[in-house]
């Protein structure tokens, strides 16, 4: 990586939700701030800025990552996906999102984008995930409203639905 001047902004080229973007960021700028305040995608929320609450979770190269613990410059050349891209059609909800609505898996919705981005990875990588897998996966997120039960139910329902779609004859 080239040596960069701390006082200046430097370009960050990366793929964001399937599109190539070029942004400018100081070295110390966090990815969460770049997404929210420079690019204007405010769906990624910041709850603690020290990596505990999980509200800022996005996907970087397919893996869940805390945007508040990632410097913007670290995603150069990478592939970033945020909650805004979860549903292909803005007028529709993805099966996971729809399950959250059906099961009341959210109240204030502040922690929800991070939880969705985490669960999206889990359900993609482990379509057979059961209750305990989901609970363990969710343990990296704090929700202060729901008491979690409906989040687990929503995730289980989405997993079940996904399995049905993948094996329509079963």
């Amino acid at each position: 990586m080239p040596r960069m001047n701390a006082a200046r902004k430097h370009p960050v080229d990366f793929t964001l939700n399937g599109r190539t973007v070029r942004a400018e960021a100081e070295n110390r700028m966090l990815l969460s701030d770049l997404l929210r305040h420079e690019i204007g995608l405010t769906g990624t929320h910041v709850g603690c800025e020290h990596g505990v609450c999980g509200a800022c979770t996005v996907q970087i190269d397919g893996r869940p990552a805390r945007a508040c613990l990632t410097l913007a410059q670290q995603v150069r050349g990478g592939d970033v996906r945020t909650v805004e891209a979860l549903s292909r059609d803005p007028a529709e909800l993805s099966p996971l999102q729809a399950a959250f609505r059906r099961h009341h898996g959210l109240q204030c919705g502040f922690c929800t984008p991070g939880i969705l981005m985490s669960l999206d990875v889990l359900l993609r990588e482990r379509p057979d995930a059961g209750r305990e897998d989901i609970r363990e996966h969710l343990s990296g997120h704090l929700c202060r409203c729901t008491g979690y039960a409906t989040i687990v139910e929503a995730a289980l329902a989405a997993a079940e639905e996904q399995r049905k779609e993948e094996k329509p004859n079963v």
Partner: protein
Amino acid sequence: MTRLETTGGLIGRTVERVEDAGLLTGRGRYIDDLPVRRDTAHLAILRSPHGHAGISAINTHAARALPGVIAVMTGADVARLTRSMTVGVKANVECWPIARDRVRYVGEPVALVVAENRYVAEDALDLIEVDYETLAAVIDPEKALAADAPVLHPSLGTNLINERAFRYGDPEKAFAAAAHRVSIRIAYPRNSCTPIETYGVIAEYDPGEDAYDVTANFQGPFSIHAVISRALNVPGNRMRLRTPPDSGGSFGIKQGVFPYVILAAVAARVSARPVKWIEDRLEHLTASVSATNRVTTLEAAVTADGRITALSWDQLEDCGAHLRAPEPATLYRMHGNMTGAYAIENVAIRNRVVLTNKTPTGLNRGFGGPQIYFALERLVHKIGDELLLDPLDVIRRNLVPADAFPYRTATGGLLDSGDYRAALDRATTEGRLDALRRQRDAARAQGRLYGIGYAAVVEPSVSNMGYITTVLTPEERAKAGPKNGAQAVATVAIDPLGSVTVKVASVPQGQGHRTVLAQVVAERLGLAMDKVRVNTELDTERDAWSIASGNYASRFAPAVAGAAALAADRIRARLATIAARQLNVTPDRVDFRAGTLLDRDNPDNAVSFGRVAAASHWAPGTLPEGTDQTIRETVFWTPDELQAPTAADGINSSLCHGFIFDFCGVEIDRKTGQVRIDRYVTMHDCGRILHPGMVDGQVRGGFAQAVGAALYEEYAYGGDGSFLTGTLADYLIPTVMETPEPLILHYETPSPFTPLGAKGVGEGNCMSTPVCIANAVADALGVEDIRLPLSPSRVSEWLYGEERPPSKPLDQTPVATGASGERMLTGSGSAEVTATRESVWAMLLDPNTLKAIIPGAHEVRKVSDTHFRAEVTLGIGPVKGRYRADIRLSDMVEPETVTLSGGTEGALGSGRGTGRVTLTETTTGTRIDYRYEAAIGGKVASVGGRLLDGAARVVIGQFFQALARHAGGGAPPSAAAGFIQRLLHLFGRHR
């Protein structure tokens, strides 16, 4: 009856929420998401690292000079443009949103910086130099009352800011006649339902009209609007307060944003720019707001068969450093229901409010309930223990009987409805208490630690805006004029195309108000839910609101949804009159179904809702005479039952009183002390249920927070006032793994006092669950003095006594001579260098040499020959921070000895101390002997002694190596290099 039947098809059904599509797709509009003016600048706040200190000087020159900085303000600057915030009791104190000459809690604002962006604003904070004279701090509310306690507010002369005594019935007689007197003493800790979204404010000032325009994720009550306007010295109509469409949780906490509304408004005025401030998590946990901690002694007069005839309360409430509005409301919100769910006729109460060096308190879910029910329900269990009765029988025997409703409590509350015994019996049956008891027996037979706890509480909702005046004496109240009521407001409007909009001043933070209001109004008007759109943003300049507006005291379902139903009913009556003429029937025959208005006796005779509704817009001349428009109807509703306190201090503090009965089984791991909730049953009577999914969501959410309060969460302070839980890694919020799923049961008895029969439900488990779990732990361990949170270390102490000293002794024990809570370190040591005494002396007094040899030093400045200032960055364990050290030299005997004294400041901690350095000539050069004493406070002191000592050793080693190198080589540092000295280096105090 478990559930009431739904009648109109929408109310009482678990429909999907209209809020969710936007929130699930990243299109929520929380405060930090809102578009702002292009010239908006950003505010950052410098905060006190001390629990208690005088401010002798603040130097902002360097901060002002930083490029990108627009304005820097201190308390004096803010005070010039504002007035002290209103204090809710008669006392000679002021309450400012920023410190002036003294800081009284860690995190108290000390200076404000407005800059082009937040990064630069925070850079500038580092450049502000504040000289503090630290004072002894007082953290414990009982110690704060001692004659020799440090006094926070000299104008008050004491830390006791309010005391009142109350007497209802004849408690003395009841106690004298009692077969038994049972008492308990409780110290309820501090905690917070801290939301995941922090505070945010966007403020503008218009000098042309001397008017402020502020958007904040405030939650109400809007009585606080009056406090803000007064503090900003403008009439209410020049303080426009708006709320964003979405808010990331509050649980009461966001009431506490209002001091920052004032600060941001002033910052906008001074910098002549719109100003935005988003609080960070450290700021939030340290200094936003907290529930009160309370020390309670509660005694009961009890008959031989367990009937309670009198209660005597002694409550010592700790409101932190300032009594901030609406405090001491936490202490008085429960005043009408101090007898809980029980029929107890005689009550004595002594209430004292004390100030300590902790964050000022404010709203927090449960507001006053956790504190009183912890004492009351622990006492009920203790009565069972002492009288050899089953605690469940004590509860049952004392419950308010079903035929007594509405029941006037001894302290003036009016319990609206319920059948507590029936609800309790259903809970024990459906919750299978028998099976749980067998499980306990079986576990105990195997030697396991298993306990069962109960809690019965009434959950008050819809606060009487007059309850807080109970803190005044009847004479003071008479002088001030009566305060009472609770105005709820809703507007129903119909546009020219006949679609319906509902507007309320309820300011939700995720509770789904928009969905429930659409249900209520659509049902009233015979429409599909999606024909009704609801707006819950509040703008004090344009919308209908009053002091009771906002989202607190569980007032939405009973009050706000009720007001919306009343507004819809008024419009409905007019629409019926208009339609009657078109249908050629009498208005009472008009029915509203599926978007039409029709003759109920001849459904084919119908006209569309839109057509009837549009008449007021398009053809007002066609309206029947005497029938008002159907364009917009605003209803204000305040219940008659909410009267001002009586001359005898009786107060109906809340309109509705839900009933909750909980029981649980817990098992305690004998080895680790871990408490596991095995089974939890919670029965709720919250009146008529408007949306079962949301009611259960409220119950589960409150329960999860209560599990946190019971087992994990505490705002912990060191004895010097240092705050020890400033991250979510220290303040432990339960994750999914720690949150069991309760069995939720309902028993609906509609409230006769609310339009829809609903009562509040949002806070109950925060009141019932901590004590229910504590009762189960007490049952498992046979321990009476249960303190929260029930962490494994605390439970282990009860199991095994205090931790034994290790078999192998640790490092020497520091000698503690500092203020309590500070970490004291003393020690001595020596090092040899090859240079002469004179050259070592010169080095130690030369800023350039010191900069080169002090690890992490950015700058060492010589203020005078005997005064140095240093800036250093040091990492201790996980805590890396920047520190400013101030060192003075005295008792100088060149080149032999010198005494160093001074202090160091940083956001993460502080230290002060003195050290004596002696230089002795040796055959090879110079021996440097050190003797030091230092006290370390603040967050860094909480990282643990061993870590601190280890880090100190490394830093001191680096210093000696550098000194030796600088002195022309020589011996490495002595292995026994002074302990305390290392510490001084650690904090950059070593010139």
